[in-house]
């Protein structure tokens, strides 16, 4: 992450623009080949754009547009990520989903949704009676008439995932350049000259995985196929004490406009309510709104009245990189040595490894020389575990005996230990600020939001020794 040289900068084989979940997935896939690979992002951490704020669901793709690229890559990506998560220690829970019908009209639509799932290659759906639905979800509000069970929908940690990809890539030699916003791209003789806010880069191949900025990067390379229309989703995170209220992801019957408001457990043991869906002009506008939050509380009161009586731990908003098209915008052009990986909508987290595999195949077909590196291929790193189903350090007697810092709980709501904070600060990808530390450890992310621990955590961040 050093500053770049000027004219002496050598020509990299591949530059990936964007270190979100898609860009880092492509980086880790390319890292197994003998390539000089660079990944650049405008943010101060990986996954600070559209990646960081979403519903954290690992989809089956049952409701994708049949026959679309998205449908294929979500299916493939989910399969790959399920396996990868297990090896890398990414929190993942197969909670299943119940798509709940609240009226006779909605109930009539379930058969069509099931048929769509079949066309997407997902065959495990099953109709659930109102009786069975309430037996499984006793806190569901009154009025549900039935549901479709989608047993493989899962929840996953959206922060550990790109961190794992990036850690694997960086350890295999990929250079990660943060705070490096791409300002212009010009064609040179056999390479791209890339002007950034942090010096000039040269690369033979350029992969555009810039998320909310992907249309602008595409335009710099002469493309004009799509326009990003950021769609903001606001979400409310409820207290962990609400977790026993919900066992599955509770989906609504979608409308042509939106997938609607869902209730879902999180891998940290909270409960999510959201998202809203509103097109916004500003690509950085991740502010929540009075109208958005109150509409969610209203929706939540109907879906699960007991939930909205619990305390709210956090609210946030994310931006989906939606376009005017109904599918991903992935194109590889060998003549320009350019891959566009744009318009990755809300399914990017699920599809990430599928997208990476597809894009790398396309790059090879387009002429990028891929030669396996000598020695062992890179393996997934073992990430610090921040979920709630497996053992955390504070629960691990052997770990505490070996290193008492894992018994020193600093963030009480989330039970984050001094040892975990120390490890995050010393990791291959250390956090740049408190938000980065939160995403790595969950410190200060709990119900008190720092009332008890934020001052101590800030001191640990600043490297001050505590007595």
């Amino acid at each position, binding site marked *: 992450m050093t500053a770049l040289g000027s004219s002496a900068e050598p020509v990299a084989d591949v530059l990936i623009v964007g270190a979100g979940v898609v860009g880092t997935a492509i980086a880790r896939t390319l890292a197994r080949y003998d390539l000089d690979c660079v990944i650049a992002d405008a943010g101060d951490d990986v996954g600070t754009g559209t990646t960081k704020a979403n519903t954290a669901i690992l989809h089956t793709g049952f409701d994708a547009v049949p026959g679309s690229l998205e449908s294929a890559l979500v299916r493939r990506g989910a399969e790959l990520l399920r396996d990868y998560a297990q090896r890398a220690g990414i929190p993942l829970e197969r909670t299943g989903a119940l798509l709940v019908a609240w009226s006779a009209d909605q109930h009539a639509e379930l058969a069509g949704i099931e048929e769509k799932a079949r066309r997407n290659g997902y065959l495990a759906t099953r109709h659930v009676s109102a009786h069975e639905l309430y037996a499984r979800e006793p806190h569901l509000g009154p009025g549900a008439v039935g549901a479709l069970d989608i047993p493989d929908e899962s929840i996953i940690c959206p922060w550990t995932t790109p961190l794992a990809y990036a850690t694997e890539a960086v350890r295999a030699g990929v250079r990660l350049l943060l705070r490096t916003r791409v300002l212009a791209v010009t064609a040179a003789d056999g390479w791209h000259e890339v002007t950034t806010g942090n010096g000039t880069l040269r690369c033979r191949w350029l992969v555009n995985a810039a998320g909310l900025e992907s249309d602008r990067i595409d335009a710099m390379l002469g493309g004009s196929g799509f326009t990003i229309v950021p769609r903001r989703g606001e979400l*409310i*995170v409820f207290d962990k*004490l609400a977790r026993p209220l919900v066992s599955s992801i509770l989906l609504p019957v979608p409308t042509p406009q939106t997938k609607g408001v869902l209730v879902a457990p999180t891998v940290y043991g909270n409960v999510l309510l959201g998202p809203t869906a509103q097109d916004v002009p500003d690509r*950085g506008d*991740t*502010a*929540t*709104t*009075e109208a*958005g*939050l*109150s509409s969610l*509380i209203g929706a939540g009161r109907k879906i699960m009245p007991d939930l909205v009586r619990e*305390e*709210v*731990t*956090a*609210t*946030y908003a994310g931006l989906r990189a939606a376009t005017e098209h109904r599918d991903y915008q992935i194109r590889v052009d060998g003549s320009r040595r350019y891959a566009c990986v744009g318009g990755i909508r809300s399914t990017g987290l699920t599809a990430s490894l599928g997208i990476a595999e597809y894009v790398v195949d396309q790059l090879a077909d387009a002429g990028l020389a891929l030669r396996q590196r000598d020695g062992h291929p890179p393996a997934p790193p073992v990430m610090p575990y921040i979920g709630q189903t497996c053992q955390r350090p*504070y*629960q691990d*007697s052997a770990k*505490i*005996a070996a290193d*008492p*810092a894992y*018994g*020193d*709980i600093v963030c*009480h*709501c989330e*039970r984050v230990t001094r040892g975990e904070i120390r490890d995050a600060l010393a990791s291959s990808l250390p956090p740049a*600020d*408190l938000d980065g530390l939160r995403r790595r450890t969950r410190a200060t992310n709990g*119900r*008190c*939001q*720092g*009332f*008890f621990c*934020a*001052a*101590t955590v*800030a*001191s640990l961040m600043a490297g*001050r020794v*505590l*007595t």
Partner: protein
Amino acid sequence: MNVDVLIAGAGPAGLAAAIELRRLGVGDVLVVERELQAGGIPRHCEHTGYGIRDLHRLMSGPDYAQHYRRAARAAGVALRTGTTLTGWQRPGPMTATLTSQAGIEAVQARAVLLATGCRERPRPARLVPGSRPAGVMTTGELQQRVYLHGQRLAGRAVVVGAEHVSFSAMLTLRHAGAQVTALVTDEPRHQSFAAFRLGAQLRWRVPVWTKTTVAGIAGRDEVSAVVLRDERDGSVRTVPCELVIFTGDWIPDHELARLAGTDLDPGTRGPAVDTALNTSVPGMFAAGNLIHAAETADVAALSGRHAAGSVAAYLAGRRTAVAARQAAPGGHAGGRQVPVPVMVAGPLLWISPNGVCPASPEPPRGQFVLRSAAFARRARLEVRQDGRLLNAAGTRLVPGRSIRLDGRWARNVDPAGGPVQVTAQ
């Protein structure tokens, strides 16, 4: 490990209870505290005003915390700091899991006292919209940053709230080097002492903007402004600032109480307790700001001292109580008599304790404490059971301020009667 009494939390309530239990001759009293130093919230409240009701002298928060630490040590209380009670082991809630740098240990207790205190609701819990920049915090975080970690704070601050703690936050901000632009409250007037309000205005020229709601927070990485809405005319204005402090709006830290399966009082949001400070779980008691968020530290300490008496009596009578329950299951629950619930109606928000224990009807300090959602210069509190008037008293209602109600009427509660209703006119 086995102890007679396990106390969760070494704030004023927990430490005062432990000291009193030792004075009453209870053998093994273990207090666990998750912070590295015992003393609770007063540790980082540098202002004076502590110790009046319990110690009969006036001292600062840190001095008060130190007094209780020393007194606990002198009384032979076992105190473990840096130790978190991470949960209750099955079967039953009387075996706790303790986690510390020394490892993980199970502790079985004959009785448990929960004294886990309270905290301020943070910004998200108040559903304040906008972006999520740094510089937004509660008074608790502010005080720790300034008084425990010696941080300086620069820039302009807006304090949300106008009750006692809000003025305390203002003083802490001044001490740390920040400029306080205003205190804002959605109430029609401030809720603290007139002297505080006048002092803020005259000495520091800090205004209190009433009937004002925080409609948003702006800023990408750091706070740049708050958006305020005047509820009188709906007008909205943007006030530039670098810090936003959310004060008051207390909620009990009730995680351990809920995990133990105690019934919650819908008003206080802490465990429901009767006048002896029994929770609904036999052998489990609760005291301090867990059951009335937030009273002053001396009130919390006296609540702990009161609970200690009940715990000692429970331990002394435990065997007979169990036998009595087996003999006559109807009138007893877990070796004690079923409490008569005490309920409030609007504008009252809650009352604590919220039950009368027929065997021990005297509340801590002989008083019930209440909160109101509305102002009233002269209100009449009425206490009734099944229509029968038990007590009537005149009082003043201020939201966020403690309202005291003499508790002698509790002796006249019919143990077989319906719930007690407390109303304000």
